[in-house]
């Protein structure tokens, strides 16, 4: 069993209100949470915090979620980092694109709080 308090989760979304909700949920479960409002901030946070999990919104200005994921995957340092996509689009095409760029799981907005946490737990536990 992984120690949750030592597990870092990076939350990336351009909607501050969604970030507030996500942060509350993740922290309540016992994880460490970090926030980023766009791709650039996300990559910075990756470097400074080395998170285990990245909860990544797909549709963001400047640099979208797929691109962020590709960048993360191209860096061998982050090989152990797991990516969970969050998206409001949820089309089949996007889902495949998500897997192709290195995401493990795909969660559609609006999400169910319990489901989200369960998913994170599973990813943390089983890699």
């Amino acid at each position, binding site marked *: 069993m992984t120690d949750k308090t030592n597990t870092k989760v990076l939350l990336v979304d351009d909607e501050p209100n969604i970030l*507030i909700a996500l942060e509350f949920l993740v922290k309540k479960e016992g994880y460490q949470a970090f926030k980023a409002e766009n791709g650039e901030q996300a990559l910075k946070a990756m470097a400074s915090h080395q998170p285990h999990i990245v909860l990544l919104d797909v549709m963001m200005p400047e640099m979208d979620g797929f691109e962020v994921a590709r960048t993360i995957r191209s860096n061998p340092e982050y090989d152990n980092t797991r990516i969970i996509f969050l998206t409001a689009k949820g089309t089949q095409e996007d889902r495949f694109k998500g897997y192709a760029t290195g995401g493990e799981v795909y969660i559609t907005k609006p999400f169910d709080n319990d489901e989200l946490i369960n998913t994170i737990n599973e990813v943390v536990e089983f890699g």
Partner: protein
Amino acid sequence: MGAGIIIFISIAYVAFLFLIAYLAEKRGKQGRSLVNNSVIYALSLAVYCTAWTYYGSVGRAVTSGMGFLPIYIGPVIIAPLWWILLKKIIFISKSQRITSIADFISSRYGKSTWLGIIATLIAVFGIIPYISIQLKAISTSFDLLVTDHTPLYRHSEIPFYLDSALYIAIALAVFTILFGTRNLDPNERHEGLVAAIAFESVLKLIAFLTVGLFVTYWLYDGFADLFGKGMSTPGLSRLFSLEEAGINGWEWFWLSFLSMSAVMLLPRQFHVSVVENTNPNHVGKASWLFPLYLLLINIFVLPIAIAGIDQFPGGAYEPDSFVLSLPLSQGKDILALFVGLGGFSAATSMVIVAVIALSIMIGNNLVLPLVLRTQTFKGAQYSNMSNRLLGIRRISIVVVLLLAYGYFKAVGEQYSLVSVGLISFTAIAQFAPVVLGGIFWKRATKAGALCGMLAGFGVWAYTLPLPTMVETGVIPIHFMENGPFGIGWLKPYALFGLDGTSHISQAAFWSLLFNCGIYFFVSLYTSQSPLEISQADLFVDIYKYRKGSTDYDVMRRQAKVQDIRILLNRFLGEPRGNLLLNAYENNQRIDLSRQQVAGPDLINYAETHLAGAIGAASAKIIIGSITKEEPISLEEMFKVLEQTKEIIQYSKALEKKSAELERTTMQLKEANEQLKELDRLKANFITTVTHELRTPITSIKALSRIMQETSGLPEEQKQEFLAIVVSESERLTRLINQVLDLEKIQSNQEDWTLQPIDFAEVTSLAYSGLKQLMNDRQISHSLSIRAQPLIVLGHNDRLTQVVVNLISNAIKFCKVEEGVINIRLQKTGDTAVLEVEDNGKGIPVKDQKIIFEKFTQLNDEARGKPKGSGLGLFITHSIIQKHSGNIHVESGPENGATFIVELPLLEEAGGLAE
């Protein structure tokens, strides 16, 4: 010499010929054909050399020196082309089972019965004078051999029952019947006949060379001696110059031209060279062996002529019989007899082949079609048709020979062999245009061929045989001298005033001119039936069809298998009919006894084989009597059309059709593209709207759940979450309103009555409404209105919405700190111009147009995601359009953006706004 000996020798000779024919046929049946040999083939072509050559050439040389030669020069000129022309004709004829030149012509032009009849009549009437001169030659030589001198009587003056020529004609008829009509061969091939003809060709050549050598080297001391005598004799030297012998270039040209066509198109030449051909490759050797044969048989003609003149200065003998009288006068009776036999063989070979060829034509293309037209052949009344066919042939052989005898008795005697022969050549030349055109020009039509041949034949009949009737008293003499009804330019020997040339060349010129011209122009102005089109295609492109692809059926025909069996048995005899059907079954691997209905394939098979026995036109009629013809389907018609692109009117129509089709296809493509684009936009719209709806819902749902499920949530945090929920709900409402708004504008549901309003007032009202917001965000802002009022025709609320939208946008996108928004309103010409400038990131040039499209700006990542539906600018754009104005954006990178709205000003209507 006694007549009895001569008759006996003649009969013995003929019996020997029969022996040869019998042996040849026997060997042929054993599969060791004598005739399948290119030398025999070339020798059989030498049936071209008749009594005309044998006796007549010397006669002609006596009066015009080398003038006898064009008749052989023509074939020598054309022979190199046989490899191209004759071979093609042979291929066509074999594939179509053609049995005669008339059949060839009829077949080419849609298997036309009428064309076959006309061609047969031309051939028969054209050849009768030719046959008559053979009778004349045989009887003259007979007389000469018996009496040793030219008889004092004329054949026309003695009663027919005492006339040797009549008995010769009858004897020839018997020979011919025995040779040519013993059985009915579907391919009209007579191996025995060919062998006999080849033998006769050898005999006549040896006999002529013998007499030539006798005269030149026994009587005289070789060529130089003879020619020396000739050149030193006054009046004879002219024979060595064409001009002085009365031959000019025009004359020479026409004679060689006529003989060119004769050597290929004379019925007997067509018969031996095409119908009796066993292997098309034999043509190669024949194309130089035959000219060689001609060279040999001609080389002694001039020496013999000079010798004859030299020996008989008083004209004791007719020049046409010098060949015989020279040895006779020297007392060389045996030699004379041999020479006479050579002449006999020359004449008989011609008569036999020519009459057989004519009888095939008469039977297949003249009598049968006429008989067939009058009855249907489903019943049993025509049992044993093949015997009837042979009967028809036998009768026609007798009739043709009697006609020839009649012509000989009436007119033939007054004219030399050559001049009568040339009449026939000119008649046969009338086939040249339709045959040549037929194998090279697809567009040539039946009507063209019919009219051309009839015109040529008419002119021929008028200018050549008609005048020969004058002597018999049928035609009054003044007709010749003054023309019919005294019309000078219709004189037969000087038609249209063409005078000063020989009768033959003027007749050849006019008849062929009319023939070709009419053939050509009528063909151009008439159209072809489907059958003509397909036949034309088969003839012209024979090599294409030989290479694999079988011919297409123009007619889709059906018949009962039983009817076909009956027909084949009736016309070809039961053994052969069964053989053919068995062969077909084996070939196609089918069992005909299990089939009721025969398809087009079997019908064509039966028709081609029947055509071999009775000619193409007759076969078509007979087959027609048992078949149901379905009209050609459109699809098949197109197939035919495709293959005959020369049919201009059709292909033009097709072109037009295909152009129309192309246009329609293009339009469909465009429509399809538009639909696809609409589809794409719609899909885009839906995903975007979905996204825009889901985003606020996500926050609302997640936070509400947290509040619901988390007990003991600090009040402060609860308040924060509730505030977010409220604001996100408002966002949701806004979005829904905008979508509805857009729907309203686009579907014209709203009342769009435009009224004159002051745009300046609208602008300043909207500006003051947003002032507070800008102040709150610490954005420095300004409004400058440089002209007022600016009356436009507009919708007050909507224009207000435009200004509010633009300013809201500017607020959204200008720099977060030190934001600047400048609004300017002015009048330029007769438009009101509103500019809203921010100092945000600006809009890349490539996006400056699409941001006004529905939702596109939402995906515009470079500009940053708008906090809203993204429908704002699209709505703005739509409203401006409804006001006949336009909106665009000017922006450089990092320079901020300026949205510019232009609205047309109302005519200065006297300050309505006041």
